[in-house]
């Protein structure tokens, strides 16, 4: 809680400095109406009017989904390599932190040792196409070992992604890493194509909902949050790992220079796709800051919401709970 207060204060300072920077810096010159919403007042709807942002461009709402799909189709094969190159391997640390925040390791061990309980635990990883986060859950919960014995595993991880290309990469990786058992016999890992705004799952079906580096690509974030609440069981937890706004102004300048100059160039060299990576860095700038996303969570109906900054706020983990009935 203390951590949250201090980072909120830092975010306020950074926002003020950021507003001054906006006047002078080319890269942030197209001011975002979203980023200017103040703490405390309820946020405006995420999508308003007929257009929304796609990077620094404005596109009709109906087109954003297909444009995003296009970007990730282009980068699917080189996605994980690019993540390593762009973040200097940091994305692994962020995802590991996310795992330790969920407590999936200890709780699943406890569930498996518990003879009285059925020991069910269902995890949904949205926008997790290549399985990077899902594999961490699987391993922490001991699913590959469990898959060696027969029967359905009461602990399961579902990967949902809007992009079939990404899912194909994920499924192929899962089969080479863990063998076919996790997917076919124990059915502990499932890949499912679906849109975060209207998930193809029943109400109250998951204990944990995670979305890592996916929420900012969703057309209507509010709608996605409401649907997350719907599919979670009462008492279920929502966790979102997403790029956020750097709180330290000096570091922000370095970070901006790096993102706008290095990342698209590396994207061009490695993935031969400058535009997709240009979109990536632009979409980060256009996405909600820490406090705004937190108030969106509150608005969607989550309780106990808070966020934790990592690496100076380059990324932040937002969390919330579905109220117990």
């Amino acid at each position: 809680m203390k951590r949250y207060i201090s980072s909120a204060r830092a975010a306020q300072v950074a926002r003020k400095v950021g507003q001054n920077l906006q006047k002078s810096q080319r890269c942030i010159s197209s001011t975002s109406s979203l980023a200017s919403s103040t703490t405390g007042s309820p946020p405006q709807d995420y999508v308003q009017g007929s257009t929304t942002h796609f990077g620094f461009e404005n596109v009709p709402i109906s087109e954003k989904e297909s444009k995003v799909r296009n970007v990730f189709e282009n980068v699917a094969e080189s996605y994980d390599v690019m993540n390593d190159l762009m973040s200097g391997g940091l994305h692994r640390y962020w995802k590991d932190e996310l795992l330790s925040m969920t407590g999936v390791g200890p709780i699943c061990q406890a569930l498996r040792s518990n003879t009285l309980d059925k020991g069910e635990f269902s995890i949904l990883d949205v926008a997790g196409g290549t399985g990077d986060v899902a594999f961490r859950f699987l391993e922490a919960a001991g699913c590959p070992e469990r898959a060696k014995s027969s029967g359905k595993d009461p602990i399961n991880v579902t990967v949902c992604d809007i992009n079939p290309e990404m899912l194909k990469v994920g499924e192929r990786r899962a089969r080479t890493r863990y063998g076919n058992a996790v997917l076919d016999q124990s059915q502990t890992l499932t890949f499912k194509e679906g849109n975060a705004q209207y998930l193809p799952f029943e109400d109250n079906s998951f204990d944990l909902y995670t979305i890592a580096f996916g929420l900012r690509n969703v057309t209507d974030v509010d709608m996605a949050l409401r649907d997350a609440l719907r599919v979670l069981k009462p008492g279920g937890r929502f966790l979102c790992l997403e790029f956020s706004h750097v709180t330290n102004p000096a570091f922000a300048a370095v970070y901006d220079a790096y993102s706008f100059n290095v990342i698209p160039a590396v994207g061009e060299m490695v993935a031969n796709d400058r535009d997709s990576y240009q979109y990536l860095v632009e979409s980060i700038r256009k996405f909600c800051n820490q406090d705004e996303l937190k108030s969106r969570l509150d608005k969607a109906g989550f309780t106990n919401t808070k966020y934790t900054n990592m690496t100076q706020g380059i990324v932040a983990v937002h969390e919330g709970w579905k109220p117990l009935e």
Partner: protein
Amino acid sequence: MYRFPASLIRTIRPTARRTFVATSRISQSYSSQEESILTAALPHVHQHGWTEQALAQGVLTSKLPPSYIGLIEDKKSELIHFFMKNSNKQLEYILQQTDIEGENMTHSQVIEVAMRKRLEMNVPYIKSQRWAEGMALGAMPLNACHTANHLEQLMMIIENAMMRCNNNGVQASPLGILERGALGAVYIATELHLLSDNSTNQQDTWNFLHQRVEQLEQAATGNLSVSSLVPNSDTLVAGAAVASSLGGAVLSLVAPAAGAGIQSITSSVMPAVMNMMQPPSVDSTVGTKAQDYDFSDLPPFESDIAPKKSKSKPDASPQP
């Protein structure tokens, strides 16, 4: 020799204060759900240790949704802090129920009763061999300041109880830094003693505690007299000696943690500290005499140094 413990305690305390403001959760109360998870997790410590596993078992036993394990932010050390905080709270309640005024308890009696009651709460974990781990965890660099805070709170609880003493109509004054430090040192020393105590009902430890409190009282009564203002006064030297040797134990508990993991602390450092902390009660009346040292092979730089030492030594030694 006299300055050492006071400056030592002074340097520890401001640090503890600062972190108290910055990151500590000690000042905050737990939500009812967090509290029921942590309370339910404590019985699992005997099997699983002060770990995330015990915490996870606590979540399941408390019949809360499994995802609620995420409510506990610091999954690795919240349990031990909760235990220390909770035990302090229990002690406060027990002392409030104790009729200190009516039974005409003296200061040392209050200290002894309070410390014994508090340490008795650790006994189940000592029996299941988990307390050494708990202490080591509490002494790790990230947690040491919290632990110092718990200790300070404990001292405040004892101090508050001491204030209620009907000490021949004399109103007790709040404890000074040195006194509180000495009190903390007695507590830590007894806690360490308890770790390796195999006697029935930990009788050895309670005897050890009794002797330490007696020593404290001697030092304190010495402090009150006018003669104690003179640094050379025997009582003051004795009191400082007790405080510095025991205060050293507090430090030796904290310092090695900087480079070492829990395993190595519990396996190597604790026994060493334990050896240092053996009660002097066994042959304290004998002590080290000047004739135990062989001065003959030392080059004489002042001719009268040896006879002087042999005279002053027996006077300065504490008399329990």
